[in-house]
């Protein structure tokens, strides 16, 4: 279906990434946000709170991030599309409800505008050190989807994609922004509503007597209902059967947890998305995401100017990770270079998929500012001659 025009601010704008994200949520049909203020994410809900009364929805400021991340789940079951917005410390508090949403298959979006950590860290400065937390932060086995924009335009576009993926797979979707992208101001083009594709909620057509809340379809995703329509659903964070009833048994656990994970793993090819630059003949593949991908692209260009066949692979969808593509590239590239604003997180995934077929070099940065392109270039240059003496603590 097409977007509801009431939320779409069609035109060419000059927006920062945070504001573009707020507009993306409105364009996606989100009419409910709950939040707790935290730098550097506040501009998203400020924008949303200003605009949403004009489009028929509401923003509520909750008492903390635990509350925000579950108030949106209540709103979703009432029939709304809903999101919340935060940064590192708040994201940590939300982990309990990432698990609840995964377990109850509640479609929603959580935006994390990453700042330097751990703990209070660097409130006003960027980081990319929540990538593993986004994937693994809540207890138990589950899968989520995470997207990583590298421009204000993408903060708009990928917010819409995040809502669509949440509805398609009934999972929490995390938009992993960072302070740089959030506070960078650029041109943002918002298309007319009839050019924005929206995935509607997958409501059942079955009558109550034939409906089971957790009976999956062929793609392993069950159909949903809205509270208040006579289905008398029971939704619980306990392990449950297809009726939604608690089932504290080995069998129910096997069946449910496998499905929660497999519904993403088996659909990974449809979800994974990468942007590639000069990969075809690349000898050295730089893998970078978010703001770092823009610095990495410059480093790749500089390497090309020096006659080195470098290329850039940028996971736009960070989770599920583009395993297949990395495995393919590992058979023909000489090495991977992974710059990221942390001390080595997504590099572990690259290394896992490369499986020893191509060495993987981390270019870490602890956050606070982006890499210099020269740092990434140097890592590429160091790989020119095989066995060029890459220090042992860098070669992973």
């Amino acid at each position, binding site marked *: 279906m097409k977007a*509801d025009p*009431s939320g779409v601010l069609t035109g060419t704008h000059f927006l920062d990434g945070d504001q573009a994200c707020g507009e993306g949520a409105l364009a996606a*049909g989100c*009419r*409910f946000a*709950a939040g707790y203020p935290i730098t550097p994410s506040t501009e998203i809900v400020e924008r949303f709170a200003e605009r949403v*009364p*004009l*489009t*028929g*929805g*509401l923003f*509520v400021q*909750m*008492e*903390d991030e*635990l*509350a*925000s991340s*579950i*108030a*949106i*789940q*209540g*709103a*979703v*079951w*009432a*029939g*709304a*599309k*809903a999101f919340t917005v935060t940064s590192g410390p708040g994201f940590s508090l939300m982990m*309990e*409800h990432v698990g*609840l949403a995964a377990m109850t298959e509640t479609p929603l979006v959580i935006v994390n505008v990453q700042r330097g950590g751990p703990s209070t860290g660097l409130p006003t400065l960027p980081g990319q050190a929540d990538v593993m937390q986004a994937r693994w932060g809540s207890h138990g086995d589950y899968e989520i989807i995470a997207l990583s924009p590298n421009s204000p335009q993408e903060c708009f576009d990928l917010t819409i994609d995040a809502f669509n993926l949440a509805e398609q797979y009934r999972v929490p979707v995390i938009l992993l922004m960072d302070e740089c992208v959030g506070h960078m101001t650029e041109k943002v083009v918002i298309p007319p509503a009839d050019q924005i594709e929206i995935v*509607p*909620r997958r409501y059942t057509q079955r009558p109550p007597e034939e409906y089971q809340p957790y009976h999956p379809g062929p793609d392993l995703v069950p159909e949903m209902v*809205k*509270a*208040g*329509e*006579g*289905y*008398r*659903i*029971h*939704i*619980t*964070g*306990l392990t449950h059967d297809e009726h939604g*009833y*608690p089932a504290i048994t080995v069998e129910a656990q096997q069946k449910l947890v496998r499905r929660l994970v497999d519904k993403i793993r088996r659909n990974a090819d449809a979800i994974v998305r990468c942007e590639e630059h000069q990969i075809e003949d690349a000898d050295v593949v730089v893998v970078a995401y978010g703001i770092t991908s823009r610095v990495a692209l410059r480093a790749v260009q500089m390497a090309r100017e020096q006659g080195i066949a470098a290329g850039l692979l940028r996971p736009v969808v960070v989770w599920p990770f583009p395993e297949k593509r990395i495995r393919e590239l590992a058979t023909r590239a000489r090495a991977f270079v992974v710059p990221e604003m942390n001390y080595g997180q997504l590099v572990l995934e690259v290394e896992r998929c490369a499986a020893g077929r191509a060495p993987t070099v981390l270019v870490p940065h602890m956050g606070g500012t982006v890499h210099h392109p020269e740092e990434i270039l140097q890592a590429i240059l160091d790989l020119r001659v095989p066995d060029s003496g890459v220090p042992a603590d860098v070669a992973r």
Partner: protein
Amino acid sequence: MSSVINMPAPPNPVEEFLRSDRMPHIWCPGCGIGTTVNCFARAVRQAKLDLDKLMVVSGIGCTGRVAGYMNLDSFHTTHGRAIPFATGLKLANPELTVVVYSGDGDLIGIGGNHFIHAARRNVDLKVICVNNFIYGMTGGQVAPTTPVSALTSTTRYGCYEEPFNLPYLAESSGAVYVARWTTFHVRQVAHAMVEAFRKKGFTFIEILSPCPTLYQRRNRLGDGLGAMEYYRDNSEIRHGANTKEVGITFQGPLVVGKFVDIERPTYLDLMNQQLARTLDAKYVGCTEEHVRS
């Protein structure tokens, strides 16, 4: 004799409100939670509520299991977070009657922050708190409601923390209706629930309830019946009592009754007023068409 034996058991008068396919329930013999559920079902019937629009949201714990046994749209959420979940449910669909049904540890211990803020905002939620003075599900540990000197599994030498006085907390946080009863007062409990259903805003009913397995036994207070006798003999009905003065001491007198019944605009009333005043015709309001896809 045989004709008597063969007589069919009378139908359970509240069966239509229960998920019979989930019985037997997990509650211990003598536990008061089932009594409160019975009161709730009778109150729902008396208030003639549209069952399709009636929601029950619970947190975690023994009382947290209530949602799972009610034949209604029901949500068993995370520990302490029933109120913010219910807040989202209610604000996104104001037509729903949203009941939060949970225990003292869940609502006031881990969820205390949400409790005071929802009361402050006056979100239209019907909060029912079954207070058994203890964390029952986990084995009877000390709770923020445990009376001073009571024995629990983590206060083997007697509790020395001052407990919360729940009606006082609720009133001072902004609740528009505050009542306390015990599971001995079944008619009063059901009546209080009916009153809460008919009232707009954040209502709070505390129901004192026995935990024979852990609280009663560890404190040598007898079984469920012993608790009923204590409630009967020590409760003093004092409607309109100053909530500051209704704190509970170990096996002391229990002040019960309706303490607060006031009018105050709800969160949504105030939001709609403010936005309509500031934005005039530009304010769309929270419509079914827009909010609920």
